[in-house]
């Protein structure tokens, strides 16, 4: 890209606006710089993290170069943001390019997670584009064509400094024409696209890192002399890090093998003991994800309950399994470091690396090459720091590429989650008491969209014995699985239709519309023909999006299960790029199937037992049901993120369908670790 050979003295996000080398890099023209804004207090619409704003340059050739701190890891925001800028500027999308996640040139950003790309990046980019359009229109036109921006900025070196953009949309965008379509980059089909693991600067060495045999194990002693004795091998031993680098990956592997290390494992539970362990090992202190809330008179609400439910729902640890394992390439130029890193949080990675190496932040540059997906699993800069340590010692560039096993074992997992639900409803079908506690999972989607007379919510953080962290939609899958399962159970106890029961307890009209649209689209009122068939529905509200999913399943006489069809209706405010959003919904549906049906991390104390694709099953072609996606476009609402919410109703919809089809209520994900549905319990406790 254009920026490869240019390095500013300091990162632009840490340089006063007037001192940034916009025109050195991009030539004369006009730049609009929209300032960042601090975090807003949580309130309606949820979380408002700080943002770093945006900047856009229009050059003499009419080329528009926009910058955002967000990154593209396959979710399609690169295309969606280009489309938005092109529409506001009134130029064809092909004349707009977008630089993402380069920490020397892009606005600071907290990270590409939490479905924040649209809410964080769209308002400042649109504000910058609109200001540029106005500024250019004020100037005498030296061209008859309004789209010919280049001629009208010739010779200028103008910087427009703009205040922070307000959350939400500045105004409706112009209607999209054919020119607003953002074509996919053909290098994706030619093999020419270089992902992080494909980059190979001149003189690069291959790095390998000594790994603990179990999670959290303490390194007691290490003897690296046998590795140091090998020709052409660089060994680094510093701050608890031990790694090697060599010309060839095999030589590096052999050097690693030669190192003698002694470890002491920390006590950790096995699978049988995990639930008790998490319940008895709370995480102390303040934590961003802690949550507790209560409202109403619970004892009185319980008194009014005609039906009561007490149940625990569980989701297992699962892995993201991005198809490209973690990779970083580090290169030092004197005291200054560049790292090409597939990460969702380049600016946090910059901080992590600078701190880890004890060097100024200004000397660290993170660039994000094309990345083989993330799904919440590529936060931070651990692999960048590993490569940087090795490159510093070697005096040559070093790349570190995780094996699939390393990706499983030394990334992190979606938390194992235990949700205790106690809920009641009155004889008229209104929810009364709602008590909902998640242990270890997280607070995302903890809050219920349903009205109740009294409620109590809590997210209880625990000390996970396996590394855990972000995952697509965080705990929203776990919390929605529990809530939507419990709601279904209450509907059964009351003998009410699951769609009608949900609708009757919802105040959120947008969610009701999504629910009713999905029911209609799936033909909810028409019986499913055939033996062993069943249909289930689940809904959810998260990240300001609304989702409803209907699943249809068939349970064969041998109790094998097939998911026949999944119908999802999704509403996320205004739709910016319908095609990319549809891809997200389709993909989230398939990914959701894996966690719903069979994905699960098996473990011994401190060690994952199935860190291989042969033993950790992810969805394949043969798992693909018919998928129907309908997007509801609300042109008057600001766009919400779309990458996460479409996953949250898949598992509960399938669980509810399995109950309808096979009479068994499953309260644990994955639902079908053996591939077969258990037989229903005999006797009067079984479903009617």
């Amino acid at each position, binding site marked *: 890209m254009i920026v490869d050979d240019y390095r500013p003295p300091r990162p632009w996000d840490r340089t006063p606006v007037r001192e940034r080398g916009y025109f050195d890099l991009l030539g004369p023209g006009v730049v609009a710089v929209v300032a960042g804004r601090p975090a807003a207090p949580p309130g309606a619409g949820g979380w408002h993290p700080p943002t770093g704003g945006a900047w856009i340059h229009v050059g003499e050739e009419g080329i528009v170069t926009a910058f955002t701190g967000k990154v593209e890891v396959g979710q399609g925001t690169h295309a969606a943001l280009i489309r938005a800028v092109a529409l506001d500027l009134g130029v064809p999308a092909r004349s707009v390019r977008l630089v993402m996640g380069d920490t020397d040139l892009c606005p600071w950003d907290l990270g590409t997670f939490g479905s924040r790309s649209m809410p964080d990046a769209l308002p400042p980019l649109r504000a910058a584009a609109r200001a540029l359009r106005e500024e250019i229109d004020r100037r005498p036109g030296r061209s008859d064509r309004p789209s010919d921006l280049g001629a009208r900025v010739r010779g200028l070196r103008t910087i427009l400094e703009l205040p922070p953009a307000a959350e939400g949309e500045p105004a409706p965008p112009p209607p999209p024409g054919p020119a607003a379509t953002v074509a996919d980059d053909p290098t994706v*089909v030619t093999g020419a696209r270089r992902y992080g693991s494909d980059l*190979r600067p001149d003189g690069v060495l291959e790095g390998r890192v000594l790994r603990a045999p179990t999670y959290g194990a303490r390194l007691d002693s290490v003897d690296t002399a046998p590795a140091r004795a090998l020709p052409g091998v660089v060994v680094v031993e510093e701050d608890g890090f031990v790694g090697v680098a060599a010309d060839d990956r095999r030589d590096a592997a052999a050097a690693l093998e030669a190192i003698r290390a002694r470890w002491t494992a920390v006590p950790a539970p096995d699978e049988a003991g995990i639930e008790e362990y998490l319940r008895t090992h709370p995480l102390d202190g303040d934590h961003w994800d802690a949550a507790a809330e209560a409202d109403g008179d619970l004892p009185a609400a319980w008194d009014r309950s005609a039906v009561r439910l007490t149940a625990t729902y569980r989701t297992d640890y699962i892995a993201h*399994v*991005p198809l490209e394992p973690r990779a970083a390439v580090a290169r030092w130029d004197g005291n200054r470091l560049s790292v090409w890193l597939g990460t969702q949080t380049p600016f946090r990675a910059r901080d992590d690396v600078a701190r880890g190496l004890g060097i100024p932040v200004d000397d660290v540059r993170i660039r994000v090459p*094309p990345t083989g*997906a993330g799904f919440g699993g590529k936060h931070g800069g651990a692999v960048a720091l590993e490569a940087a340590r090795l490159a510093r010692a070697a005096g040559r560039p070093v790349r570190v590429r995780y094996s699939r096993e390393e990706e499983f074992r030394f990334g992190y997992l979606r938390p194992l989650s235990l949700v205790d639900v106690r809920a009641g409803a009155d004889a008229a079908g209104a929810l009364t008491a709602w008590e909902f506690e998640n242990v270890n999972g997280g607070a995302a989607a903890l809050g219920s969209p349903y009205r109740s007379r009294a409620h109590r919510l809590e997210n209880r953080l625990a000390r996970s014995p396996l590394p855990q962290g972000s995952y697509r939609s965080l705990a929203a899958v776990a919390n929605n699985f529990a809530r939507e399962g419990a709601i279904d159970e209450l509907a059964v106890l009351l003998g009410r239709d699951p769609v009608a029961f949900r609708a009757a307890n919802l105040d959120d009209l947008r969610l009701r519309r999504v629910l009713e649209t999905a029911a209609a689209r799936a033909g909810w009122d028409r019986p499913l023909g055939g033996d062993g068939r069943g249909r289930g529905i689940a809904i959810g509200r998260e990240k300001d999006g609304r989702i409803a999913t209907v699943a249809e399943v068939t349970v064969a006489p041998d109790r094998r299960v097939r998911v026949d069809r999944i119908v999802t209706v999704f509403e996320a405010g205004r739709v910016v790029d319908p095609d990319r959003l549809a891809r997200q919904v389709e993909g989230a549906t398939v*990914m959701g199937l894996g966690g719903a049906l069979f994905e699960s991390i098996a473990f011994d104390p401190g060690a994952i037992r199935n860190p291989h694709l042969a033993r950790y099953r992810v969805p394949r072609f*043969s798992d693909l049901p018919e998928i129907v996606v309908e997007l509801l476009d609300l042109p008057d609402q600001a766009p919400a993120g779309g990458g996460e919410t479409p996953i949250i109703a898949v598992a509960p919809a399938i669980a509810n369908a399995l109950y309808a089809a096979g009479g068994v209520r499953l309260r644990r994900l994955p639902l079908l670790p053996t591939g077969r549905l258990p037989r229903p319990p005999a006797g009067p406790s079984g479903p009617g």
Partner: protein
Amino acid sequence: MADPPRILRVNGDRRPVRSAPGRPLLEVLREELDLTGTKYGCGEGECGACTVLVAGLPVRSCQVRLGEVGDRDVTTVEGLARDGALSPVQRAFLEVGAFQCGFCTPGMLVAATALLRAHPSPSRAEAADALEGNLCRCGGYGRILAAVARAAELAREEGREP
């Protein structure tokens, strides 16, 4: 590295390689020949990201040793386009938008090309079956099957090899 160079026939070229015969073809392609379109995804033949054609048949290049290839033709994703023109399969993937992160795409393209050369008009079920060993973690299976159908159509219309 003491072995004498041998010739590997890749994408119509004869390329001298110095890797030992026991080295996986994937590493030879990526590390020695800088053909990085072929991806490492698992190293155990489970994901299909490293799929290439050897003598026209799709193989997992992480599971094939250089010495096993002999003088047979190897085709990687870089060899699908002819004279700078994208193949029907490549164009169909672009037209349908059959990718998200794109990391599985080279393996999918190669596997789909092999399928369509052997079976020019596969049913959806046949295509899914042929691609079963290729994983798309972004979940783009539906679009990939649509792209395969579209590629079959393009190849027929144009009278071209897929």
